[in-house]
């Protein structure tokens, strides 16, 4: 099956802000002409720092963020949807196939509903079951798969820890048997010892239920372990995209390299930072011209300020958006560009 399950083409999400009294209204370009294809059955990682647009992208795929331009095509072999154009009837169908798991386990569950009701809600709202027995049956089924104690179904969310609440969240997302699940920082708020548990659960559920995950995270190590493919976003644009092993073994984009070297290593003796990025992340309302990364890139040249790189193919599924990627293969940075800490662009 070569058709991706969901593919975004030149997708843009721009939010207008309340601007100054005079002059043009500033626009937050949260997602800017992004091309991403998620293959069926994959555990697809989407990483980035603040302002990268990864959360907005995930929400846009589910029509929970306004789409300004571009399209999204969903094709699971049974139906094919142009997501950005769905009318209310088809939207209902889409909703039962695409769901989301949220970051904050404390804000994601309605505090005044029992766990059973929380998990059952998608079934009831979408009318997927006819009788109460059927609903209960499916709730019990998914709760068991998510390793929730069936006795716990009568309880309210305040009875549970972060990890358990996240499992309830997962059960709710999966009860409608979707094909596509966006996990938006699903483990970021959990303790480390629980993270592993939830990640393993997601992997096993993927196998059991034939799901496709879009795993959004800022934590590269977690992504490295669980995802089969990773896309790196910066300021709303794709910088690099590759199968996980390749990305971590041989990153091509200077941003990816800097990201990887910034991760604190667990080995106390490994204390040299190959490339430290100077400066701050620019604001998404006022992104740099040309290549969005050029203000902090140790390899930036004059043309990087003028020209915006398109995604070029490195090998197979490995793509990179950098004007100089060929030359930079193993190159030592030219003079690291000293950026003032306040993020202003040097002349």
């Amino acid at each position, binding site marked *: 099956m070569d058709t991706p399950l969901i593919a975004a083409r030149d997708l843009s999400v721009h939010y207008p802000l309340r601007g100054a009294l005079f002059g043009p209204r500033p626009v937050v370009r949260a997602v800017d002409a992004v091309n991403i294809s998620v293959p069926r059955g994959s555990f697809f990682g989407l990483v980035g720092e603040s302002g990268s647009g990864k959360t907005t992208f995930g929400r846009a795929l589910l029509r929970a963020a306004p789409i300004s331009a571009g399209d999204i095509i969903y094709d699971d072999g049974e139906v094919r949807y142009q997501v950005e154009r769905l009318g209310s009837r088809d939207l209902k169908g889409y909703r039962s196939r695409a769901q989301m798991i949220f970051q904050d386990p404390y804000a994601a569950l309605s505090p005044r509903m029992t766990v059973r009701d929380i998990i059952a809600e998608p079934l009831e709202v979408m009318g997927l079951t006819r009788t109460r027995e059927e609903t209960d049956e499916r709730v019990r089924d998914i709760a068991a798969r998510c390793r929730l104690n069936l006795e716990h179904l009568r309880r309210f969310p305040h009875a549970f820890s972060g990890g358990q609440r996240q499992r309830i969240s997962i059960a709710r997302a999966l009860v409608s048997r979707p094909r596509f699940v966006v996990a938006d920082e699903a483990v970021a708020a959990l303790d*480390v010892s629980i993270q592993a548990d939830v990640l*393993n659960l997601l992997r096993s559920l993927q196998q059991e239920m034939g799901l496709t995950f879009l795993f959004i995270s800022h934590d590269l*190590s977690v992504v*490295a372990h669980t995802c089969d493919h990773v896309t790196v976003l910066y300021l709303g644009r794709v910088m690099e995209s590759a199968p996980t092993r390749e990305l971590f073994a041989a990153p091509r984009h200077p941003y990816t390299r800097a990201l990887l*070297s910034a991760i*604190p290593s*667990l080995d106390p003796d490994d204390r040299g930072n190959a490339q430290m990025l100077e400066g701050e992340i620019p604001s998404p309302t006022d992104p740099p011209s040309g290549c969005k990364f050029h203000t902090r890139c140790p390899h930036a040249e004059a043309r990087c300020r003028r020209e915006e790189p398109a995604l070029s193919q490195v090998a197979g599924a490995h793509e990179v958006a950098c004007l100089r990627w060929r030359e930079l293969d193993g190159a030592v940075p030219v003079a690291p560009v000293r950026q003032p*800490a306040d993020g202003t662009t040097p002349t």
Partner: protein
Amino acid sequence: MTRLLEVDNLTLQFDTDEGRITAVEKMSYSLDASQVMGLVGESGSGKLVSAKSLMQLNARNAVYDPQTRIILHLDGGPVDVMTLKSAHDQKLVRGGAISMIFQEPMASFAPALTIGDQMVEQLRLHAEMSPARAREISIEMLDRVGISVPAKRFSQYAFELSGGMRQRAMIAMALSTRPKLLIADEPTTALDVTIQAQVLALMKDLVADFGMAIIFITHDLGVIAQTADTVAVMYLGRLVEQGPVRELIHNPAHPYTRGLLAALPNLHDLDSELVPVAGDIPSPLERPRGCVFHTRCPVARAGQCDRVVPPFTQLASGHRVSCHLASSEAVNT
């Protein structure tokens, strides 16, 4: 290495509606000048409140055990922080000899005052100096932490600075009084990883320059590995393992520490399984008897681990662990 801090039998409980909750139990450790200690633990471990005890910053319903002693070795001699009762006396440890930086820099700065105002206030609270001199020192500190155009930033408000810069400004503010000990509560958790790298490098730099000790509270073992000299691992209010960072990471002795390390995704070995620590962290209202970790421990021994609190066993130099199995292993070797 001069001894800076000795914490002896720190036991801290909170009086709540649900009863008396034990947050920290019999925690003892010591810290030398210029040493960086990483304090690792998850939720409910008590790492934050134990550090706040050093500055007597806990809430009013905090109850300390009378045997708790916290000795700070200052130029004028040793001071037991527990004896500082009045706000005037406590000024010594609040911003004076001990300073603290927090996780959320936006929450640490008053939104309606400029950064400069707050830094000057901090300085003048702890030392006699004129506003002009305080301003001078503040701008110097801002420069030292890598903020460009420090004079301009001095007159700006917190919301005008980016996250990384705010964190730097907070470090500058905390360090302006030249404390002997800096407590850093998850200072980089809320920052992007590229900014985190910058801030960590800055902190290491400052340690060398200022000769101060740091207690670095975090749940991120990677950050600890890169910045700490010694590590203390806490679980549900007890110190379970402590040792030099290399020792601890390469030879973890406590099952919890091992569990933490096994649960961490390791970039060097992408094929390895992520092994979670079984079970959930018990609620502080239901602290397990005996060893606090026994309910989740893969090698717990019934009859011993669920009844008796394990004593500390000394392993290699400076490495000690509180575990029945580790102590019997040590006896056997």
